[in-house]
């Protein structure tokens, strides 16, 4: 057992640190305003071109074939530099890697990993949230294409995406979990209308909603087999729930560092309960940082697509909401007098963490039944 860097890891860390000193874009933490989302592609390609993104993914697709723990170092150093977290798309890479044909992988993974092609994820619908398998967007075969009709929501980056990882119903005559298929659908076409969703802290560039009205996707763009959509979706969401895949550790550490700096700068301006909130947020963020080290070390034995992601999602949610609540507490009256206050916006954004990627209640159902082995009602 060793939490320390190996020589190769230490070399990577110092190279990364030197690069960050020169190339930190100085963007806000992603949760706080639109600037991050607008310039995310720039950050992604800068990280990638410098050799610091896609570390654990296959070199064949533009990754670096490194052990997963290198992502821990990346997150550490991003946080220490006050840089934005790495773009969160590991779950799509995992989904395509686990289920796509060689042709699909060769065609799509390089652009996804390099950031040259941007992706959104078309899963949730207005009437299919926690009950995702009841989704109603249809994909109907028409010659060499499928024709798509339906309405997706909570579609991250739909405004700028080149491709949509779309989950749609290809067979209405089988049980709901068996009639779904996944596609790589080009977003630049008529038949797609995209509108932003404004979140409770006012940001508009993270999530969109997308209407498909006769949009087309080539049959060869199907990811996996017809009817394999539910399994693919479960692979993706199990990774979408993992802080190790998302890189959010860096975001929480950045916020905690900023709060600590504010308190140290004017010690007499903060009450003891505010100081304790900040310290507890530090403990929580440290827990997640160490937890990700353990999880990514376990992956040295091979990647699992299992219910463990739900445990990690719940831990991550508690951390984000503890940090968010502390940020609100530290802001005090400023949070209500200035709608641009950072603490207010970090707090408001944090409330979504117990919903996105599957609600906390769904995660608890999964932990209870699939890890603890409790009976279903």
């Amino acid at each position: 057992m060793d939490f320390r860097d190996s020589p190769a890891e230490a070399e990577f860390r110092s190279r990364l640190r030197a690069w960050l000193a020169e190339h930190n874009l100085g963007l806000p933490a992603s949760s706080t305003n639109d600037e991050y989302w607008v310039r995310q592609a720039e950050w992604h390609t800068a990280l990638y071109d410098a050799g610091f993104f896609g570390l654990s993914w296959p070199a064949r697709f533009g990754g670096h074939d490194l052990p997963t723990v290198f992502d821990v170092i990346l997150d550490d150093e991003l946080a220490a530099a006050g840089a934005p977290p790495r773009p969160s798309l590991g779950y799509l890479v995992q989904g395509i890697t686990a289920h796509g044909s060689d042709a699909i992988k060769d065609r799509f993974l390089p652009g996804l990993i390099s950031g040259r092609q941007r992706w959104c994820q078309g899963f949730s619908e207005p009437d299919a949230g926690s009950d995702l398998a009841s989704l109603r967007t249809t994909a109907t075969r028409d010659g060499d294409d499928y024709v798509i009709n339906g309405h997706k929501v909570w579609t991250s980056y739909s405004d700028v995406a080149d491709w949509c990882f779309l989950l749609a119903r290809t067979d209405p005559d089988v049980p709901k979990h068996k009639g779904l298929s996944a596609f790589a659908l080009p977003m630049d076409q008529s038949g797609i209308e995209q509108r932003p969703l404004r979140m409770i802290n006012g940001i508009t560039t993270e999530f969109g909603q997308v209407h498909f009205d006769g949009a087309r996707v080539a049959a060869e763009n199907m990811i996996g087999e017809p009817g394999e959509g539910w399994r693919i979706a479960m692979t993706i969401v199990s990774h979408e729930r993992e802080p190790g895949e998302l890189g959010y550790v860096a975001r929480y550490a950045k916020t905690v560092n900023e709060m600590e700096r504010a308190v140290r700068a004017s010690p007499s301006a903060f009450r003891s309960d505010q100081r304790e909130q900040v310290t507890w947020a530090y403990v929580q963020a440290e827990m997640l940082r160490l937890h990700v080290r353990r999880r990514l070390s376990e992956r040295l034995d091979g990647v699992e697509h299992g219910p463990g992601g739900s445990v990690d999602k719940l831990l991550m949610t508690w951390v984000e909401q503890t940090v968010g609540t502390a940020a609100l507490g530290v802001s005090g009256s400023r949070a209500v007098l200035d709608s641009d206050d950072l603490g207010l916006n970090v707090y408001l954004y944090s409330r979504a963490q117990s919903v996105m990627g599957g609600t906390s209640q769904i995660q608890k159902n999964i932990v209870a039944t699939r890890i603890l082995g409790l009976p279903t009602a």
Partner: protein
Amino acid sequence: MDTRDTPEQAELRRAAHQLAGQLGPSTVADLDDQTRAKRLAVAVHDAGWLELRDDRGDGEPLAGGVEAAILAEGLAETVADVAFGGPVLAADLARRCGAANLGTPVVAYTPDLLGVAVLETPVTTTALHAVDLPADGGPVYGLVRVGGGYRLAQVRVDGAAIGADHGADLTRSTCLIPPGATVVEVPGQRRILTDDELASWTALGLALTSADLVGLMRGVLELAVAYAVERRQFGVPVGSFQAVQHLLADAHCLMEGSISVALHASWAVDDLPPADARTAGRVAKAYCARAARDVCETAVQVHGGIGNTWECLVHVFLRRALLSSQWFGDDGEQLRQLERERLGTVDGLP
């Protein structure tokens, strides 16, 4: 970076799990079975586990903080009623002073249990408490201040052996040492204990108590899940209700987070600079103490009425968690210390 067990660590984990499973109490009534308790104590002694932190000849311990924490966790998982952390911490303190160890020692703590008592010779003037005494209690150690640090001292009550009594924890003893006990420097110490060494020893204390809490969470959660499957109301297992499932899922997640911080703290003892190791211990203890209390309370709740009776084993876990939390400081204490380290002190604030 690889936080997985080495093969030897995995083997030690299996051994602790097996021994504690065979000889630990499986019912509250078992706590009165002196034959079993004696066999457990002999087995732990014969395995050499109490000597893990003894000097291997060059001033370094025979085994790491990780190995000690693995055993602490394994023994706590079945609320094994055997002295372990107490003697191991005392032996570690003696090693750091370069003193030969006599018998199975324990440490005298200040009444707040935050750390080893620093004493004046020739007699103690305040009450002290020994924690986790072995049945055949050996010497009780405190420290005396000398130039540049501390020396190891033995605390004696009228020349008699110090007897154990039970506090909240039914599986490990504590003992009041009233004022007036004799304080004698232990002869033949090869080193003066520095503040750095003392910080490192505190890091071990925080790591072992955190590991104990992790073991308790594992054990009590296993009981609670088993009960939720077996206990039926409204014609179905109570564990099929989401209200109950979500309590247990929360508890499981708290345990998983605790495992991660406790693991790091145990590694830090020997591998990080002393102050950093102690900080790692404080983070772990702050998290584990809060988590363990929540998890034990959940286990009591899931057991319903029976969970609030003496004969249900769950309160034995809760009681032990209370001692492990207080020993080296509970979550509130750790947060207070971390706050000082990270935010500085402010005049007028406690």
